[in-house]
């Protein structure tokens, strides 16, 4: 029997899988990336875009750890927009339209060029388990791959079922087979599985759309890239166009609602509230007369258009009527219909914060299988799972990421603490330390940490070192400034004439100040790289709040440190609601901090648990 030994085996080559495999290989593990189809590596299942608010932050964090999603996206970016440009730097998220074909090609080239990483084509049908520890995978054709750690990144393929109107069939994506055997195997292992749902809109033929009738949405003139290593767009830039649903569209949908897979009762999985199908929008927001729809190009050489905003599981004939009711789409042709897909996910509370399954050592999970949605969320988990899988193989201690320091930490903590009742998407509001966790300072927060764990390559290291040196020099220069109120007034900055001199940070954050004024006093700082200047300005702007956040974080940390005995869940805690008791048993928080973050935890419940924890300790 064919038999190959690896350190790490990654199952699935989507965004979680590619990032996991690349991270494991960077961390020194001999890694195999197993995929059903080599050509499908790096395929974007849904929208042809990367980043956004929260999601752009995640990409920058993966990028700061020398991950690949940001760099590959920039090799395929055909339109850049910095979202929330009118807001402050903490909530600005870089976003790019992606050329699907260019992305897949760049990703496949990246994977092929990565040392220690091999691609294996095949279907993983089973896990091999020895003594309660995962030892590898068995392929459908009988081959086995042994490894110290296995990472499952099954996306929508695990037990995938497509719904399109009245039709239902087994598939992982349109036209691709699902991973059915593995689904049965995981259920047989007794893991806490559940069904989730997502959807995608129909794809339209670009040549069938009346572009002149539609307003154009251009990209930013001054693009902000997804990777800090990128200095210029790799491809020609393209605009998007804007159309929308209207009263007629909604009438078509309403009349045919019972023919939708979602409303016909065929789907049991839970979908995301923040990415609703057009059927959902029409039902839940019945008073709206229209919803915006962005027509996004799928690539420079593609004739496909992705109509962002009309994900649907209505039958094809209804989809055509619906699309043709929209402005500019009167003669539109559907190349591939929209559909809903149900898939298996695991209750992420079964995971350790290392993304290893508590009940099955050696098995790591990342991406949609953990209940998340989105390429960026998947890649971020892939990176952490890949790093920890490599560390397990190499005999090193697993690492975790704190929610105080990164969005990755926020996401993993949310997932393992609360699980995900609906597909989990990143928002900036999920981060307590939002003002500190910015896209502009991801490197400052994470690259040194990545270096100690062997994730950072030579080019990134040099780039980061130069950028940090420049920032540190500028910080000292700004601190050293001592501007009198008179001097400031000379530059149009009104400051109390209290005789106190102001440093450069105070001038930067002053409403009438900023770089324009600071440059007058420190002309040498004008030549700093833009990302360094942006980052300094953000530091100055948020200083008051970030200082206070540190105080709050320290207080909470102290209160949260109280240990909860492992057997507390079994003990009677009179007055604790049955719901909270079940959560306590399922989650087994080790500290009051973990208990606090259990969703639905009430102050009274927490007080009870804290008192009983203390009683047990006494």
């Amino acid at each position: 029997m064919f038999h190959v030994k690896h350190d790490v085996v990654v199952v699935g080559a989507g965004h979680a899988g590619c990032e996991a495999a690349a991270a494991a290989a960077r961390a020194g593990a001999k890694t195999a990336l197993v995929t059903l189809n080599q050509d499908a590596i790096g395929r974007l299942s849904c929208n042809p875009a990367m980043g956004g608010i929260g999601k752009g932050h995640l990409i920058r964090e993966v990028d700061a750890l020398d991950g690949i999603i940001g760099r590959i996206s920039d090799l395929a970016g055909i339109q850049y927009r910095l979202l929330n440009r009118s807001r402050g730097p903490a909530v600005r998220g870089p976003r790019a339209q992606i050329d699907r074909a260019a992305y897949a090609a760049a990703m496949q080239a990246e994977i092929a060029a990565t040392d220690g990483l091999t691609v294996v084509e095949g279907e993983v049908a089973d896990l091999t388990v020895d003594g309660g520890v995962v030892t590898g995978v068995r392929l459908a054709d009988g081959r086995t791959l042994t490894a110290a750690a296995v990472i499952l990144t099954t996306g929508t393929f695990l037990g995938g079922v497509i719904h399109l109107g009245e039709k239902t069939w087994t598939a992982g994506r349109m036209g691709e087979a699902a991973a059915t055997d593995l689904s049965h195997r995981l259920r047989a292992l007794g893991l806490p599985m559940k069904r989730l749902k997502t959807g995608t809109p129909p794809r339209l033929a670009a040549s069938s759309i009346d572009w002149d009738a539609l307003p154009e949405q251009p990209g930013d003139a001054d693009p902000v890239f997804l990777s800090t290593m990128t200095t210029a767009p790799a491809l020609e830039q393209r605009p998007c166009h804007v159309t929308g649903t209207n009263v007629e569209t909604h009438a078509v949908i309403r009349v045919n609602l019972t023919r939708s897979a979602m409303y016909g009762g065929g789907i049991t999985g839970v979908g995301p509230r923040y990415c609703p199908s057009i059927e959902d929008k029409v039902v839940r927001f019945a008073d709206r007369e229209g919803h915006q729809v962005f027509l996004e190009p799928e690539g420079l050489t593609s004739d496909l258009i992705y109509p962002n905003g009309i994900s649907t599981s209505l039958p094809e004939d209804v989809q055509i009527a619906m699309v043709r009711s929209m402005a500019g789409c009167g003669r539109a042709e559907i190349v591939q219909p929209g559909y809903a897909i149900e898939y298996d996910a695991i209750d992420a509370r079964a995971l350790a914060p290392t993304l290893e399954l508590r009940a099955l050592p050696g098995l790591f999970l990342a991406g949609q299988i953990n209940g998340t949605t989105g390429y960026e969320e998947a890649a971020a988990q892939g990176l952490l799972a890949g790093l920890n899988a490599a560390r397990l193989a190499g005999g090193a201690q697993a690492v975790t990421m704190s929610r105080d320091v990164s969005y990755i930490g926020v996401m993993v903590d949310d997932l393992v603490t609360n699980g995900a009742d609906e597909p989990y998407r990143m928002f900036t509001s999920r981060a307590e330390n939002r003002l500190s966790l910015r896209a502009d300072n991801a490197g400052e927060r994470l690259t040194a940490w990545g270096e100690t764990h062997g994730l950072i390559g030579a080019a990134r290291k040099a780039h980061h070192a130069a950028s940090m040196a420049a920032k540190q020099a500028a910080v000292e220069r700004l601190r050293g400034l001592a501007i009198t109120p008179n001097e400031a007034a000379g530059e149009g900055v009104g400051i109390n004439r209290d005789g106190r001199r102001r440093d450069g940070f105070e001038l930067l954050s002053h409403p009438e100040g900023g770089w324009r004024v600071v440059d007058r006093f420190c002309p040498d700082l004008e030549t700093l790289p833009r990302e360094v200047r942006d980052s300094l300005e953000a530091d100055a702007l948020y200083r008051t709040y970030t200082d206070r956040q540190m105080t709050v974080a320290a207080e909470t940390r102290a209160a949260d440190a109280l240990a909860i005995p492992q057997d507390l869940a079994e003990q009677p805690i009179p007055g604790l609601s049955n719901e909270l008791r079940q959560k306590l048993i399922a989650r087994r928080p080790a500290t009051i901090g973990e208990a606090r973050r259990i969703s639905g935890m009430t102050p009274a419940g927490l007080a009870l648990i804290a008192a009983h924890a203390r009683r047990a300790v006494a």
Partner: protein
Amino acid sequence: MQLDGTIVALSSGRPPSAIAIVRVSGAEAVALAASFGVTGLAPRRASLRRLVSPLDGALLDRAVCVHFPGPETSTGEDIVEFHCHGSPAIVERVLADAVTLSGVRMAEPGEYTLRAVLNGRMGMADAEALADLIEARTEGERRRALRLSEGALSMRVAEWRARLIGLLADAESRLDFADEGDVPDDLTDLACRCDALAREIATVLSDSSDADKLTDGFHIVLTGSPNAGKSSLINALTAREAAIVTPEAGTTRDVVAVTIDLGGYKVTLEDTAGLRDGATGVEAIGIARTRERIARADLVIAVISPDTAATDVPADLVVHHKADLGGPAGALATSITDPASIDLLRDLLRERVSEAMRPAEAALVTRARQRSALGACIARLSDAAGEGQLELQAEALRLACYEMARMTGEIGIEDVLDDVFGRFCIGK
């Protein structure tokens, strides 16, 4: 505080009294009753039994005994009560014998209530209001505590909290979903709404600034020449022999205070050293102290009598005492020989006191913990109203929520527990 074991304590007032209730709470409550020879109690039925010492079998008392089976009890545990005769000797002996039993100990102050909270029988806000209710010494304090325990403050806080969450949600939706067509970009009224909420909380807080007045009490200072009869007037008003009364001028050198319950409020009447020019030594010190008291008094009564010289201390009320010796017609006149004149003055004082105490009784915010949390919340709301950038407004609102959470006990739960149970003294 140790929280295990069965606890026992005297739950009624200090003996001697008509009856004294010894209450036992915990897993061993029924076993404890059996050790005292009390068995076969029907749930929630009063039964007359002989209490026998578990140590030497001596008859201690005949008591009405009640068994309340847990968890449907005030503490959530088994409770047994002995309603004994209210003799100090009986109570001491019952308690002393009880704590010799294994697993039984005296209750810590507030432990019955702590157990009630821990066992989910009572919420934190209820416990705090109950603490106030139990500590209430006057009708006014009782009325306020009862109103608060019925949710007068917690309902306001719940409403503020909901509005705060609404404000933050408005800001967050603009920050996280800026690229969604359905979320309008403009949020011009956020600052106004933050300001309005801050002002509303501030009003309740400033209306509560006199909250402590209810427990401090209303202070009345009596001034006048030595021998004007201040002490005798206080004695008549309070019907107690609390102040020293002698015919020799200048006897009352220091301030003597008598505290009474007047119309449901705590009122302190202060007899002061007479104000006399040219006093020296101890008397001069007394006079200085009198002036200090006058400055801090809620009401100053100048007592004038026909047989002493008038002093020119500014007073809120002038009483012509010793009216039986003469005095101006139509003036507020009293005489210890005329009880009706004393009653008249007492009624007048009662009216003044209840008018002055009304805001304190209406106060919703009565605790330093609440005041500091709401004060900080107001400050963060004002920050939110003043910030120019939406993400900074959101940040200030998050901090405001954090402060508001201290009111509802979500954060800093340890401080709340300490505050509640440190102040508690029931079951003893």
